[in-house]
């Protein structure tokens, strides 16, 4: 056996080559080419810096303001929501605010809700746009997508779970309008899909579908959206944590022994 080439790793030992920035004591703090104290602090919004760190590009303020608004839309203080529920459980058993909030955020790496479906939503609308430009009609795109799910309208970004309709879409449409954004080709396509699904299935576009199309018009990739939104639910989780942390311990949905329905093997001896 030949001696393996380890030069890739040898070159990286005891050194960090950052493409992002760093702190040089007595000199300054640098972030993607900006001097943080002189060029960013007090001059741009926090969300602009979040996006700079997630994508490597400093966005214009309206884009960051739109993202900030969508963070408000997608995290609310209802402890029935799965990630928030985890925060509340952290509060009731006196875990720290940091641990509980992070635990709730971690839960949103989920196939069912949270941030990961956003990746799928962006991927869908961008693929649909490619199909449209490849001369498929919107009707054909919808039929093809529904066929993958046994004829049902299970398209990521449409047919919201738990409820029909989505109050967050008109809220974000108003935000976009006030910030001066127009409707781009992806959003036009999303509205057309929405119209077809409403007519055929009484199912419409949800906030995922709206976000995915809007951000595709701004040329974000699905991975960039995922990275920007990594802590999307943090504030709602924190709220639910605080609610229970400030009450007597173990009072969040307490369970009697009989509240658990045991369906396993009856008592047996070793």
């Amino acid at each position: 056996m030949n001696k393996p080439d380890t030069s890739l790793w040898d070159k990286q030992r005891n050194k960090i080559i950052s493409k992002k920035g760093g702190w040089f004591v007595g000199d300054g703090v640098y972030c993607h080419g900006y001097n943080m104290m002189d060029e960013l602090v007090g001059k741009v919004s926090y969300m602009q810096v979040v996006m700079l760190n997630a994508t490597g590009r400093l966005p214009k303020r309206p884009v960051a303001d739109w993202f900030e608004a969508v963070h408000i839309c997608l995290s609310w203080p209802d402890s029935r929501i799965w990630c928030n529920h985890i925060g509340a459980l952290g509060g009731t058993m006196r875990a720290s605010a940091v641990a509980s909030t992070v635990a709730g955020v971690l839960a949103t790496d989920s196939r069912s809700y949270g941030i990961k479906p956003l990746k799928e939503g962006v991927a869908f609308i961008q693929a649909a746009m490619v199909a449209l430009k490849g001369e498929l009609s919107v009707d054909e795109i919808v039929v093809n997508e529904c066929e993958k799910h046994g004829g049902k309208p299970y398209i990521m970004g449409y047919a919201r779970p738990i409820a029909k309709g989505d109050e967050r879409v008109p809220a974000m449409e108003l935000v976009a309008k006030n910030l001066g954004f127009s409707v781009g080709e992806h959003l036009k396509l999303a509205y057309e899909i929405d119209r077809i699904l409403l007519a055929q299935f009484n199912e419409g576009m949800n906030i995922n579908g709206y976000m995915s199309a809007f951000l595709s018009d701004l040329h974000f990739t699905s991975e960039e959206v995922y990275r920007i939104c990594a802590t999307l639910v943090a504030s709602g989780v924190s709220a639910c944590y605080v609610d229970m942390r400030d009450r007597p311990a173990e009072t969040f949905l307490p369970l009697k022994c009989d509240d658990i329905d045991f369906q396993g093997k009856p008592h047996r001896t070793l």
Partner: protein
Amino acid sequence: MEVRKHQKVTSRNDVFADKITTRIWEEVPSENNPYIASNNRCHGYDLIELMQQKSYVDMFYLLFRGNLPSLDERQLLEQLMVGLINPGPRHPATRAAMNAGVGKSDPQNILPISLTIMGGEYLGAGAVEGAMRFMRKHRRENPVETADAMLTELAEQRPKEGDWHIAPGFGSHFGGVDLMPSKLAAVLARLPASGSMLDWGMGFSSALNKKEIGWLTVGVAAAVFADLGFHPRYGAGLFQLLCAPGLLAHGMEQANKPITAMPFVSDKAYVIDYE
């Protein structure tokens, strides 16, 4: 902007369960307080009896599989548990634990921090399910023929730099064959409870060795989990559980030291290169 009519928001009235159900654990309420259990049972066995008569490995297997292991199954699981107990101080997950420790993070956060990193798809728990599914899919094939075919068909996918994981659970490590996983697998494969997955993986790994590729630790764990009958979706969590003791031990070892006890890369060795 076009004025659109929005669908009215209405509940779907989904029917959710009234109660949490479980087949694993029964808590028998005490007479005076319905919140206090007087007995706990795991898959029907009384916890106190289990404590007195069974080993931790027996209990571990019972918890997940619903029945106690045979002597052979216990031996295989126990030897894997020993083999995986510490990813070692160079593993990124262990380094996360040590970093949390020396940084004086709350001790109760050291394990969650390091286990989160251990969830990674590269040499971490995130690779185990894929490895289990890969071996299940190919187990009826001749492993040498499968290896040769993959080496030929996927040759162009080998990255120009860095390691190549030709299949989940199998690849190069630091440019060569990782020796410890192969040693672990060789020992485990000789045990009576070792089954078709470990056997197939041994053949597949050996056939890959000529290209500086072999077993990865996650692959060995995946093969044993599969041979013991665990479903692939359990693989990630089981791997995290088995590696957890080493992560915590290394994290706590650093927690008692000053913050200067671990290297902090000097400004001279810290280079910003935006290109």
